[in-house]
């Protein structure tokens, strides 16, 4: 399962496609504060990025891939952008 939902945390694993958008939205709708763990995520579809962005989801862990981590970290401000690995 690319997306695993626990109480307040959405865990993204490997390639997360547009299929996960609906479950993610359900998860976000129900909560005031939501967190996302992307540490094992290798691919994040725009639809998911969009939801994370719109829901101001706190990113607790950035992906391992440095390029992905860099841009997700920067875009989803409020997340650990400064701590994330920077550089191409």
């Amino acid at each position, binding site marked *: 399962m690319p997306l695993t939902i626990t109480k307040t945390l959405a865990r993204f694993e490997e390639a997360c496609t*547009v299929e996960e*958008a*609906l479950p*993610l*939205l359900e998860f*976000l*709708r129900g909560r005031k504060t939501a967190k996302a763990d992307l540490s094992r995520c290798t*691919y*994040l*579809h*725009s*639809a998911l*990025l*969009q*939801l994370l*962005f*719109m*829901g101001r989801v706190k990113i607790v862990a950035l992906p391992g891939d440095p*390029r*992905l981590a860099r*841009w997700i970290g*920067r*875009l989803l401000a409020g997340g650990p952008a400064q701590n994330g690995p920077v550089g191409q």
Partner: protein
Amino acid sequence: MTTLLDRFIPESRDCLDSATAGLLKLERNPADDGLVNEVFRSVHTLKGASGLFDIPALTRLLHAGEDVLGAVRAAQLPLDSAMVDLLLGALDRVSEWVDSLEATAGLPDDADGISAVLSKQLWALLPSSTGAANPAAADCMDLAPPPGWLADVTASDRQEALNAILVEGLSLHAVSYTPDDGCFYRAEDPFNLVLQLPGLLSLTLVRRDAEGLAEADPFRSALAYNALVAQPRSEIEHLFRYVIDQVVIAAVPASALDPACGDKSMAMPARPSNPVVAGMILAEQRRIIALPGDEASLKARLTAVEATLASLLASLDWTAPPGELAAAAAEARIGEPDRLLGLIAALESHLKAVPGDSDPVAVQASRRAPTAAEPKHQGRVLKVDQDKVDRLMILIAEMVVSKNSLPYLARRAEDVYGSREMGREIKDQYAVIDRLAQEMQRAILDVRMLPVSEVFERFPRLVRDLSRRLDKRIELKVIGEETAADKTIIEALGDPLIHLVRNAIDHGIELPEHRVDMGKPEAATILLRAFQEGDQVIIEVSDDGKGIDPQAIKQKALEKKLISQDKAESLSDQEAIDLIFLPGFSTAQEVSDLSGRGVGMDVVRSAVEKVNGSVTLASRKGEGTLVRLSLPLSMAVSRVMMVEVGDGLFGVPMDGVVETVKLPVERIRRIKQAEAFVLRDAVIPMVRMHDLLETPRRLLDEILEEAVLVARIGGRTVGLVVDRFREGIDVILKPMDGLLAGMRGYSGSAMLGDGRVLLVLNLKELL
């Protein structure tokens, strides 16, 4: 701006014409590097020039075409017919848009969409790696102004962008990508597409609406992506080639990144798009050198300054002595910046000497269209509006007419005032003016002469398109395209010729397999030949197709009741073939979309006859058909014979006049209502002009002989009875206009030397 546009329109048409012609040649001869270059250059020039105007749809489409041609030129892409179709289609669009630009100073509303679709198709042809390899595509064009969101880019991103440029000398582009709502359904993934951008320096997301999560549709794209990219435009466009209509790419000039927002020690990017920016960069370098600081930071700053200056020198084509910059920088590092400052000062004065640096349009023009400007000026061809030439011709014509009044004046001097000497002097002066007027007339007619290539040019394209559509193989040969004729004649030729060529392709030429069965080469030949014969231009359209079957024509004419059975049997083959010129005749079994314009050969004939030309057709069944148009070289001056009928003076075009006869009344024979007479063993029907023109008959008691003008009209000889013959004169025939325009029977009017108006008859219409 209007005048620039005025110049752009004819130039762009020239470019389009040469690109189209080049493409057609190229298709047949794909290995010709010269041709590829020629086509590429035309498109490139046009694209460059179009950048001066706010017409991004047109520019983008040309850009796509240029990319494809660039790939062909670099031998990365083999040229095939489908590609030529696409390119020609694109050029057609551009040509329509140029027409629209001329008419409305803008593009049609659907231009953006069409441009996006066509460019996408063109870019799809490119092998994926060509973008960067294509030098022409790499040049940056400011299709759109730098977007407003640049101001929101964080200072650190800004600096990163500038640093990257400083070191690598890359061009900077702002990419505004707004995916449409439904893009997820098309398996598009905007975010990951953007991440694929090499040289991505900054990325920000913008929500397109304020919709909250509660009502959000997760499958609707609701973000826009704004990216700052250090990559050539072509590379970016290539990546976004499938969504190019949703992307706006703008070159970011150094000035758009306000240096005040950046770090104090930061150097400006070097790659100035114009001398003004270059000047700003130099001033900044001067400031950086002067900044206080410790030795380490000074060294770092000087390295940056040296790099900036190096790329600035390169971009300005400045030829400083080699090593000069390095030496100056080395001196500066040990605390002696004078030599470096001197270099900067020298650069600054060089910049001031660059012409037009206060005129952004001129700068853009010189930067973008150097290939357009240089070769064109060598020929010193002056482009003049046709209307001006026409006006000049009318003026000269009027002068020719008014000089004709001098002989009248001379006669009056003699007869009325009794001064022979005065009369002779006037005649002397008249001779001089007459000679000058004739020379002027010849000169202006020369100006109006156009080569027939003006009309022939469109045929390679027509033949190619039609033959592809009909699966016929056709070789078009053109001979004598430099033959010139008056502009009116050339213009009148267009439609008839198109019809003849279409006819040849559609009806004349057989399918390749039939041709092979007949023992003919698979590819048919259509020959367009033009040459001059006396004062006539002859244009021949011939094909080696199946020819015309006289029996089939007779049959058809009988079915359509155009001729009687008796007549059909008495017709010779040639006469039978000529039946196709009859109005209402069409041999095609069904009307195809090619000849389906309702134009028959009769229309061709009447169009040609309108400019005093004639059409003949020769054909042999199974061997081909030849249509021959003969047209006068010029129709500005016509020779007419003046005749008096009743109180009026009329002109009869000289080319129809056979002879003039004084006929004793007793030789006139009455056959029922009609009259006729015998002239050299031929019976010639007579027509009384009084009746035709409805002028009162002159009432003379006794007419002993009639003045008969024998004329040939459409192959028949007729005797026209007039009151009196007058001399033949050269006149400038002006067509009837205004209320008289539709009047039948007259081909026009001319002014006589004594101020009277001469009506010139059109005998064919009259009888």
